[in-house]
């Protein structure tokens, strides 16, 4: 059976695992943004914290993914469900680019512009939401894009702990020494990464002021 006909025959399962994959990536990215964006903003206000926090996020990224899944396995609430565990680990991975880009993006805003904003009588919140975040948006979204692409890749390994996703095909294919099965996981994963990158690129262009 050719790879193509294998794909067609298994399209239902490919679709289901792709959706699972998307669920893992989507929820961990939302969590990473929900945590990383405020944290990155906080670091620009408490710069002394930036070294230890970004350093810690850096260290997390250097832990091999399989090992990170393993480390989290005995954790009480997390270890109960494989997808919970996977999403936590993926969030930890995605955190660094989000925090770092938020931090450097905001610090990169022209100090003269920030000064003007304060001088016009903007409150701290208005400076943040009307000036700093919009001007840093390009850099922040670039971080989100990088994190998303990384997460799509790392999420294939989540199948090793039974969290599902396209990694199922890859691990199964490796075990069966069947390239068609490996490709049934690898190709949709690669396409997913490209697609999300493209989509976020569009969002970036839409939300960034200078085209």
């Amino acid at each position: 059976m050719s790879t193509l006909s294998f794909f067609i025959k298994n399209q239902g399962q490919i679709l289901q695992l792709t959706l699972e994959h998307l669920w893992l990536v989507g929820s961990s990215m939302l969590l990473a943004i929900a945590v990383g964006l405020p944290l990155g903003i906080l670091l620009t206000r408490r710069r002394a914290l930036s070294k230890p926090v970004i350093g810690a996020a850096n260290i997390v990224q250097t832990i091999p993914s399989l090992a990170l899944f393993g480390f989290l396995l005995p954790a009480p609430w997390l270890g109960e469900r494989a997808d919970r565990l996977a999403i936590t680990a993926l969030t930890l991975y995605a955190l660094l680019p989000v925090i770092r880009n938020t931090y450097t993006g905001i610090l990169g805003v022209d100090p003269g512009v920030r000064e003007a904003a304060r001088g016009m009588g903007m409150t701290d919140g208005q400076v943040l939401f009307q000036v700093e975040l919009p001007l840093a948006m390009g850099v922040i979204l670039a971080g989100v894009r990088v994190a998303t692409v990384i997460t799509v890749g790392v999420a294939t390994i989540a199948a090793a702990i039974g969290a599902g996703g396209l990694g199922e095909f890859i691990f199964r294919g490796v075990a069966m020494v069947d390239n068609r099965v490996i490709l049934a996981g690898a190709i949709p994963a690669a396409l997913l990464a490209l697609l999300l990158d493209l989509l976020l690129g569009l969002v970036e262009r839409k939300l960034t002021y200078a085209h």
Partner: protein
Amino acid sequence: MNEAQETVIEFRRVSFRLANEHLLLSDLSLSVRRGETLTLLGRSGSGKTTTLKLINRMLEPSTGEVRVEGRSTLDWDPIRLRRSIGYVIQEAGLFPHFTVERNIGLVPQLERWAPEKIRARVHEMLALVGLPPERFLSRYPRELSGGQRQRVGVARALAGDPPFLLMDEPFGALDPLTRVEIQREFRALQERLKKTIVFVTHDVREALLLGTRIALLEEGRLVGIYTPGEFLHAPDPIAATYVAAYRAGDANSNL
């Protein structure tokens, strides 16, 4: 007290030092009267911008106090204080992600004016600084020349109709011809608007042309305050240096 003589901004023995103890301003005392234009003249690094920022509490005095409308700036809510003081920043400081319209309408928007009122005000301000609204409203600052940016900076500072105006070398980036032109327009504007203005410049000619009085700063100290007439005959050697430069410039332009 005579209305025209009423002091509305006052420095009382103000000094300002950085966290590293470096002294930027020492023992500065001066007062600005309602409706006047006080020019702060001094060379680069003499403390002109620092003096302005003490007025709208972008900086706080290390000793002494700055009073606006009879109240120490430290007793003002900084947001309220700044919204009642128009601020034209050195190098314009426009928001690069806002159109000209949003830049100028910023303070009215912060003050929650009705949208139609903001629009009308923005049109009025653009016309006031000599930029045809229909051509400039939807441009971004990067689509303007340096001089146009400075005009927008002035329009933005005026939009909220603040009683005070701080202007930090607002015409610095202009060629001499445009500069003379915009100075003349500004004088006419002054007559009409009757704001209390503190105007920073390092150009003697500009200080003499626009100031009802001139405060001369040198290395963070006040050398003296003069009317233009007094300044031209001031006995102080530093003032005399400026006057000599001014007369030399005059001689050149008469060649």
